[in-house]
């Protein structure tokens, strides 16, 4: 009985990944545009760092190569993290646009299967896009990562997955709560994460209230931990505190976000918000 039920849910889980793959393929022109946009953004940051030398900073105490690496790692990771966040957070919005939300919500599957299927598709696609941009960076910039500790960086990257998905699912609740304003609020959340998580600077430069929010953002630990591993060769053992914090955040955020989603779905069904498109 449990085996059958698990098989049923696994089948649906695969269905969501398959569906997203088909959608990415069918919207290939848009996907190409977004990839180009991301690539150009990351390259701009890289060239901005290269251009610092022409501003007479090469003789200052600033290590320009380290600065460039610092910024590029931030830009590349933000591309990945924001894309996964966006895909998960807009899972509901996308279905509203397409007009399929009611069909998906009346399917005989668990909501957790639906959301985790979307998360898995987003992670796979996000990694593919980040890998393409990463290859372009390797080709275009002289990146010295000889002292990098890759196992530590990968461990932090993996540990960051859970809280990232939790944040995404939390944000996907917004379009369920408000068909009219939910999308805008989701964009706003993404913007705030960019500001407070230390994508291009350490959060210590932020005003104190924003630093507090920065400390609460899992992206802060992800970016800082991966930078420490790649730029300063921080070992896996030294990365354990960051990994622990990320896992702890994930353990709290994922179930909490699923619970919130369930509450929001019940509210949407009570108020008739599933059908409304804004």
């Amino acid at each position, binding site marked *: 009985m449990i085996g059958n039920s698990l098989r049923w849910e696994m*089948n*649906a889980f695969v269905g*969501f990944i*398959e569906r997203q793959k088909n*959608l990415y393929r*069918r919207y290939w022109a848009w996907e190409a545009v977004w990839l180009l946009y991301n690539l150009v953004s990351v390259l701009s940051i890289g060239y901005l760092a290269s251009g610092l030398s022409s501003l007479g900073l090469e003789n200052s105490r600033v290590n320009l190569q380290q600065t460039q690496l610092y910024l590029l790692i931030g830009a590349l990771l933000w591309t990945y993290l924001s894309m996964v966040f966006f895909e998960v957070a807009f899972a509901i919005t996308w279905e509203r646009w*397409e007009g399929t939300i009611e*069909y998906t*919500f009346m399917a005989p599957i668990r909501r957790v299967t639906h959301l985790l299927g979307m998360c898995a598709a987003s992670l796979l696609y996000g990694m593919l896009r980040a890998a393409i941009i990463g290859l372009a960076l390797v080709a275009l910039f002289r990146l010295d990562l000889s002292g990098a500790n890759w196992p530590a960086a990968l461990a932090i990257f993996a540990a960051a997955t859970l809280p990232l998905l939790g944040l995404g699912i939390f944000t996907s609740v917004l379009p369920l709560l408000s068909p009219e304003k939910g999308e805008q609020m989701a964009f706003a959340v993404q913007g705030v994460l960019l500001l407070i998580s230390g994508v291009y600077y350490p959060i210590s430069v932020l005003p104190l209230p924003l630093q507090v929010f920065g400390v609460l953002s899992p992206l802060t630990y992800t970016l800082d931990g991966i930078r420490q591993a790649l730029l300063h060769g921080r070992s896996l053992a030294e990365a354990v505190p960051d990994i622990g914090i990320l896992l702890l955040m994930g353990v709290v955020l994922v179930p909490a976000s699923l619970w919130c989603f369930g509450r929001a779905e019940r509210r949407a*069904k009570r108020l008739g918000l599933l059908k409304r498109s804004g």
Partner: protein
Amino acid sequence: MAIQAKELSPQAVEMQGITKRFTQRRRWLIGGPRGKEKRALDDVSLQVESGRITGILGANGSGKSTLIRVLATLLTPDSGTASVFGYDVVSQPGDVRRHINRVSVEASFFKEMSPWENMLYAARLYGSGGQGTRDRVEAMLKRLGLPLDTLDRPMKQLSRGQQQKVAIARSFLTSPSLLLMDEPTTGLDPRSKREVQDLVRSIRRDRAATVLLCTHDLQEAEVLCDRVVVIDQGRVLADGTPPQLIREHGIEHGTLEDAFMRLTGKRLEEDEEKDE
């Protein structure tokens, strides 16, 4: 796959005192206007027997779609109880969903994806999608008279009639015991309308599933339905076979339309004009 209707409760649908109100939200301004309340369903009680086509007849805004959404577990009623094959729509939504599918007036498809991709997605959600699915989909579309070269074209390139046929094929693919059809022929050209109606007839002939057909097309209801429930402003006004309703509420040698007009006290067009 869904359990066949014969193994289930003889009553496909049972609704008891279902009420659903919608309130227009208040503005955030202090002292702003109070939200308006609309009763979409008002103390509706209804039984639908398995293996038959039951029509829910009403003008736009009469509550037909709300009723379908409650049964599809997409809306929670404010009061009353509703069950599908004995499963409560509020407390056992998962069990209800395994036995139903819905064809709605608007095409619920990923429009850039092809019929095959949309149907594969549906099959996955309903426990299949493995080997042999493509063959089943092709056979289904052939039966519905859809050319096979439409199978891999984006949905948006198909006509409304073709899209509606794909929607029906998609619902058949999941073998539902209860098929909820919400105005499946609205907006179709006469030929497509006839073809979709033939399909519904074939369901009745095969007794393959119980069909709840919401329509405001009186002729369609008269021809297709074993039984018709007339609703207006969220209330059930009459319930019976089309000849019974004509006899009891219509005029001598009249039609279902005559009976409907007498029951609701207005023409269908009046409601439609009001909606516009």
